[in-house]
């Protein structure tokens, strides 16, 4: 490192810092040449290259130079501003300058990492630097607007992620709205009997948390509810929640289930969603015995009263003086104000019928793993017995791993939990039926705490492991069995294995409405459809929308321990924001220079937030700074050039354009 003292020429004193980022930048770009080049640019009084600008000594350098060289503008050419703009603005401020007297050049993500030709990459670096130096001289001292944070929080989705996050925040004394669209909270975990790798009973660990969420004085739990609309910004979101009718008065129903017994349907006839259609329920029902809230609901699709209005309404009779049943309940909307939002909307399992050669939906004894979870569950449709469709116990079961995962035709990614839950199911099936179990896998992925040990345990129990991707499943001639054809890659031979039951280890996918949900909350998704975190390593539960956090499988496949850890992290991030009491907003808002405004009203319909109004007596437009989110659309539309966007002023952008194009 050394410094290069350049000339001056335009009233500002700019310091330029070119970061090596170890070899990340310096390996492709001649950083020394860039610094030398910068020193020749008008306004630059000092240019340095340095190994790690974001390190403490790097930041100190900026502060020291501001003091010693009377710098008035700072340019750092390093990584993406999305990563370190905050860091360097802070250093600039600590050095005694307005933090916005700073501009950042993206030399790493946009240059050294994407180009191989060193000369071309260095030339590009020069252009970008020149643009920054030209632009930064126009920078104005700006103030960040402080907004207070409403301490109430919204959590969307009541699976284990949402429940855990809600309890954490509620225990910290914050009021939480927990919004779940199903009639009960619990999510997928409520469907399992045991959980890997410890095989502890899912209900025993989940039910107490569900109940705690329901009874906690700081949690308002709304089931059968969905978020319709979100407005506002960090700390100050206005949310409209649609609450679907349960046809049961929640404050009156005591969950005695007498109405269910009394229903005119003496036999349960309706396919039961919670049991994935493996069991039946009545039109008035409770999803499962430990459902929270402990309330029944009526399904208007199958209820005779809803269909014809002629039912004897034996349920109402049974409910008697409690009068909890209300056929007239309507959908309604609640408007709430919250400061932070945690999305915990979970996942959907892969639709196995998308792989026709495994025969799901065609051969009755092909099941998905989630269906098997219900069969092994003591409170499931078979009271915990693993049975074939004809009611007999299977003597042999094949489990096919990676169905809808690690597959170019469906999902390329690994769903992370299927190997482990397949081992769990192998163990449970063996325990319950003593059947021969064949697990056909591509690789066994058992990378968690206690996972490898669990794999060894299941192997020792006598489960057969066949390394190979099953090619197809078809009926075995002359029997009721199914044949799995698989190339055993360890034995280098094709094997045909006849089994009574086939279980498909379906992968985890984003919820089918994930794209609508993410748009509602103004966040992005990754290519696979899961919600996108702000940074994969350093901000794994944040999103690009301040105040909106992620927890659990909505961000990507993961097991329960990781889900709970992430939910705790999301709650902590939200709590940190709330306890800070206020946040500072980026000052990139727009304002109108009154003298220039011709009163043409072009800008008014441009603004998506209705931030622009027309001041009739002055015949001029005016922007409400609190409502403006700083997109700049009105700025680009104003024919008289009278709207200015802070940080993106016309002069700044024009000089940047000229900067990247002017050959040195």
């Amino acid at each position, binding site marked *: 490192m050394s410094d290069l003292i350049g000339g001056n020429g335009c009233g500002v004193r700019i310091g330029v810092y070119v970061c090596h980022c170890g070899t990340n930048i310096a390996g492709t770009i001649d950083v020394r040449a860039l610094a030398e080049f910068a020193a020749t640019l008008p306004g630059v009084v000092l240019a340095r290259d340095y190994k790690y600008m974001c390190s403490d000594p790097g930041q100190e350098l900026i502060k020291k130079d501001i003091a010693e060289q009377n710098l008035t503008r700072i340019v750092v050419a390093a990584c993406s501003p999305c990563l370190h703009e905050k860091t360097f603005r802070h250093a600039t401020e600590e050095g005694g300058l307005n933090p916005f007297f700073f501009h950042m050049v993206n030399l790493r*993500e946009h240059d050294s990492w*994407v180009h191989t030709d060193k000369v071309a990459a260095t030339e590009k670096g020069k252009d970008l630097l020149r643009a920054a130096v030209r632009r930064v001289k126009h920078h104005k001292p700006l103030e960040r607007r402080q907004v207070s944070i409403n301490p109430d929080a919204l959590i969307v989705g009541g699976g284990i992620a949402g429940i855990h996050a809600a309890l954490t925040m509620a225990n910290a004394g914050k009021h939480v709205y927990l919004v779940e669209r199903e009639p009960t909270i619990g999510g997928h975990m409520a469907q399992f009997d045991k959980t890997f790798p410890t095989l502890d009973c899912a209900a025993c660990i989940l039910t107490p948390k569900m109940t705690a969420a329901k009874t906690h004085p700081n949690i308002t739990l709304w089931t059968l509810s969905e978020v319709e609309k979100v407005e506002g910004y960090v700390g100050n979101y206005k949310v409209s929640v649609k609450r679907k009718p349960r046809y049961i008065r929640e404050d009156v129903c005591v969950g005695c289930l007498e109405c269910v017994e009394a229903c005119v349907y003496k036999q349960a006839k309706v396919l039961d969603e919670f049991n994935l259609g493996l069991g039946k329920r009545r039109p008035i029902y409770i999803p499962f015995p430990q459902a929270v809230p402990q309330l029944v609901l009526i399904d208007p699709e199958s209820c005779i009263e809803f269909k014809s209005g002629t039912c004897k309404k034996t349920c109402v009779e049974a409910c008697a003086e409690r009068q909890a049943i209300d056929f007239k309940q309507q959908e309604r909307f609640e408007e709430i104000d919250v400061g932070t939002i945690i999305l915990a909307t979970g996942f959907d399992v892969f639709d196995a019928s998308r792989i026709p050669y495994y025969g799901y939906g065609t051969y009755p004894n092909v099941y998905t793993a989630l269906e098997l979870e219900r069969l092994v569950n003591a409170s499931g449709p078979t009271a915990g017995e693993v049975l074939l469709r004809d009611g007999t116990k299977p003597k042999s079961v094949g489990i096919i791993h990676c169905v809808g995962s690690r597959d170019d035709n469906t999902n390329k990614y690994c769903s992370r939990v299927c190997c482990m839950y397949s081992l769990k199911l192998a163990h449970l099936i063996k325990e319950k039926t003593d059947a021969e179990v064949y697990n056909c896998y591509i690789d066994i992925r058992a990378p968690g705490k206690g996972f490898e040990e669990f794999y060894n345990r299941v192997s020792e129990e006598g489960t057969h492991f066949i390394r190979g991707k099953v090619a197809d499943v078809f009926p075995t001639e002359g029997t009721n069995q199914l044949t799995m054809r698989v190339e055993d890659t360890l034995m280098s031979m094709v094997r045909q294995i006849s089994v009574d039951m086939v279980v498909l280890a379906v992968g985890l996918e984003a919820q089918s409405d994930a794209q609508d949900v993410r748009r509602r909350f103004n966040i992005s998704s990754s290519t696979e459809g899961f919600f996108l975190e702000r940074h994969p390593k350093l901000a794994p539960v944040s999103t690009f929308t301040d105040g909106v956090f992620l927890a659990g499988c909505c961000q990507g496949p993961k097991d329960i321990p990781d889900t709970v850890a992430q939910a705790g992290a999301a709650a902590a991030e939200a709590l940190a924001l709330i306890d800070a009491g206020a946040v500072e907003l980026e000052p990139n808002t727009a304002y109108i220079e009154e003298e220039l405004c011709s009163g043409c009203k072009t800008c008014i319909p441009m603004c998506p937030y209705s931030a622009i109004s027309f001041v009739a007596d002055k015949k001029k437009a005016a922007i409400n700074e609190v409502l403006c989110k700083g997109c700049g659309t009105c700025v*680009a539309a104003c024919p008289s050039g009278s709207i200015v966007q802070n940080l993106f002023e016309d002069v700044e952008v024009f000089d940047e354009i000229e900067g990247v194009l002017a050959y040195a």
Partner: protein
Amino acid sequence: MPDQFEPKIVAFFCNWCTYLAADLAGTSRLKYAPNIRVVRLMCSGRVDPQFVLDAFAKGADGVLIGGCHPGDCHYQEGNYKALRRAHLLRTVLREMGIEDDRFRLEWISASEGDKVRTVVNDMVAKVRALGPLHLAAKPTPQVVAAHAHSITAAAVVGGA
């Protein structure tokens, strides 16, 4: 290879989708042509037609605008405004003798790092084939402003 023509492309990327996609291309170490210079704006709706005309006037051989997919704009509908302006801008550019391939609007989401690569490479190849841009008469700032004005005015008539 004899000196091949290296076009200069100025790109206006919105902060929330395309800029992040370009960052992702970086963290994924995807390689693409070094001819592009990105100017970061908050939204594709901020792209003033004057920015595009100015870039051509100052020597760009191509201009690329990158924004969020329809329905995904961080500010709800800035990208629709950008799209409408781009249509009008294209007619003006044609009048000025600037070929269609030199001006491009693309929707690239934050997860589409690979699309940044393919779009940039494709655009560089096409502009390279067209050769350097020789504007018949270099538009003066006044001309640029006048054209831009007609576009914003037309966009207004087009309705919001």
